[in-house]
């Protein structure tokens, strides 16, 4: 099932990238989009609140005035408020399913996963509260069923539903409580959202500007063509017969209707518990390999590993024995064993005059000296006359092992950003290969979040450690094609070899 979902997302990703480009691909920024929708809802909510009357008699009519008397702004604000909430509901759900399908929920990532679950409840509660405030037929339906639903819990002394018996039992006080909740719960949601991303380095909370603008434009169009409207006003003396439902957020209600409150509680609480425990339930997932280890002898305290760790697993402390020096430390509870830190460490240089390559920080599952010996041995074994290519790849992107040949040496590792830029320099200077390609996950969708972003920046000399200027850039390529792109990567390699071959001929001819 998970494999099937993953396949589905992979196809969806490639499809969206065709039109949106990877940079704007909404699939890669569902969390950021959720944040974006939250802000839209918050801002439009403040506007609506200014004109909203907190009373039984005023609520409905004040919203009608906002919708019709100021259709050009109030009406649009209202539509944005409603549609952005629903869009957020969909994005959050997709985000959840995607993190699950892509195996980004277990290990140290449990924290983001588990803190995500209460956000679902808060989001639903916020939305339900919003529909309630309109005090139309839908609100009446929600009010009575919600009250009956909560009355099922043995915590209620007086049944909440007795507030909604008929028009005479309705009180403004209860309405004020609702308004208070409709402000308080979304604020709690925001707080929860920040806790949710606490352990994620530089979490992406803003979508690409192109995607943001497109979204706003699209929402403006739908808000003008199909503005959000109220249903008939509530009247507790007449029962609601047929009601238009928001199926994004109000889907528990038909369930309360047909199953009863107890079963609905059991289902929703049960589902939440299963979801919460998911990171620890037995399932086919990539195994957590041993976490990064610091070697104080080779650490100079530069802090580059700290800057690049995508999960805030690295911090600095006083050096074990060198006075006035710092050294890095790894928190094993946070480390996902990606190896990005090893690629960042200046000690990971094969040019160093040591018998056996050591470095400041490395993952035991794929030590930097292993990367060096594999690189040297594989390249020396190439026997074809075609230009020799060193192809580095990651276990989550294009399958580089499939592309190995007499002229292509391939090495796959947890994350391509494990390759220190000095390695590229080394391979080309020593004439071990004619060209180097680093491949991996799609741009903006690194399994370890930031690997390909860091490599791009290291190679364009915006981030330490940089790819040195002396390295001939035309002999190095970065190729972020993802799992789906293995065949295309093969074509790109051939094309690269072709290019290198011609360059060689030209050089021989012109000197």
């Amino acid at each position, binding site marked *: 099932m998970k494999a099937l979902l993953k396949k589905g997302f992979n196809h969806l990703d490639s499809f*969206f990238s065709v039109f949106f480009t990877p940079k704007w691909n909404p699939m890669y920024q569902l969390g950021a989009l959720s944040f974006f929708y939250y802000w839209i809802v918050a801002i439009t909510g403040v506007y609506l609140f200014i004109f909203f009357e907190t009373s039984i008699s005023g609520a409905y009519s004040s919203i009608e005035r906002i919708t019709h008397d100021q259709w050009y702004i109030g009406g649009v604000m209202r539509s944005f408020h409603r*549609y952005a909430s629903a*869009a957020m509901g*969909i994005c959050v759900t997709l985000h959840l399913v995607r993190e699950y399908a892509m195996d980004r929920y277990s290990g140290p990532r449990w924290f983001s996963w588990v803190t995500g679950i209460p956000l679902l409840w808060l989001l639903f509660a916020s939305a339900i509260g919003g529909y309630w405030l309109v005090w139309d037929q839908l609100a009446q339906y929600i009010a*009575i069923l919600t009250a009956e639903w909560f009355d099922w819990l043995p915590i209620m002394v007086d*049944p909440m539903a007795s507030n909604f018996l008929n028009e005479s039992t309705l009180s403004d006080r209860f309405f004020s409580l609702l308004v208070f909740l409709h402000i308080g719960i979304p604020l709690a949601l925001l707080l929860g959202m920040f806790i949710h991303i606490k352990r994620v380095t530089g979490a992406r909370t803003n979508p690409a500007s192109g995607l943001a603008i497109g979204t706003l*434009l699209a929402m403006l169009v739908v808000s003008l063509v199909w503005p959000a*409207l109220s249903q008939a006003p509530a009247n507790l003396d007449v029962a609601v*017969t047929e009601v238009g439902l928001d*199926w994004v957020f109000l889907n528990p209600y038909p369930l309360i209707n047909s199953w009863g409150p107890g079963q609905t509680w059991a289902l929703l609480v049960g589902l939440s518990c299963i979801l919460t425990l998911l990171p620890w339930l037995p399932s086919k997932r990539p195994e957590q390999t041993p976490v990064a280890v610091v070697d104080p002898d080779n650490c100079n305290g530069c802090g580059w590993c700290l800057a690049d760790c995508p999960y805030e697993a690295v911090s600095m402390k006083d050096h074990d024995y060198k006075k006035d020096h710092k050294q890095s430390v790894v928190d094993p509870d946070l480390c996902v064993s990606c190896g990005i830190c090893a690629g960042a460490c200046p000690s990971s240089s094969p040019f160093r005059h040591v018998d056996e390559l050591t470095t400041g920080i490395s993952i035991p599952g794929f030590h930097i000296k292993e990367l060096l010996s594999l690189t040297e041995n594989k390249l020396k074994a190439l026997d074809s006359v075609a230009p020799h290519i060193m192809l580095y790849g990651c276990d989550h992107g294009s399958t580089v092992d499939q592309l190995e040949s007499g002229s292509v040496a391939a090495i796959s590792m947890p994350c391509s950003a494990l390759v220190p830029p000095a390695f590229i320099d080394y391979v080309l200077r020593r004439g071990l290969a004619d060209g180097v390609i680093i491949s991996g996950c799609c741009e903006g969708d690194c399994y370890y979040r930031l690997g390909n972003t860091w490599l791009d920046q290291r190679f364009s000399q915006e981030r330490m450690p940089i790819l040195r200027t002396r390295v001939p850039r035309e002999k190095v390529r970065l190729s972020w094609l993802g799992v789906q792109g293995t065949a295309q990567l093969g074509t790109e390699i051939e094309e690269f070899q072709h290019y290198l071959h011609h360059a060689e001929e030209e050089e021989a001819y012109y000197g």
Partner: protein
Amino acid sequence: MADLRRYLGQALLYAAFFVPLVYITHLPTFTHLEEDMAVLKIAVRHAGKIIGECKPLSGAEYDKLPSNMKRPEICPRERSPLQLELLLDGESLYRATVSPSGLHNDGVSSMYQRFEVPAGAHHLQLLMNDDVASEGYTWQLERDVVLEPAQVMVASFKEGFRLQ
């Protein structure tokens, strides 16, 4: 040209997201109550009679009390649960014992129930016993009613049953 095609594709994808989204925020409708049905709600909030009587304290018991709490007799606080029954056309629709709230069962008993009943003429009977010491029902109300479709009729209690 390629750019234009990309933006066109984006526009279509935005539409593919937002049009169904707008649709499902208000449709399809859900039928909560069938057309020829009405609603009957019963909500009672009432404190049952206190169980037992005050009894005078013996001299020794009186002496044991702290000086600020001395009083000649001790009174029970526990209240009787309510025996409630609602009959529609002679058939029991609801029948339950509603316990008093409070740690010592000394608070009010409150309950609420909603029923969907066919619209039309009905014979309603409401019965309640709020005193375990008495046999049978201490309160009752009988009424012939005609319910319009979707009408909400509320049975409540305040010094006697009421129908609204």
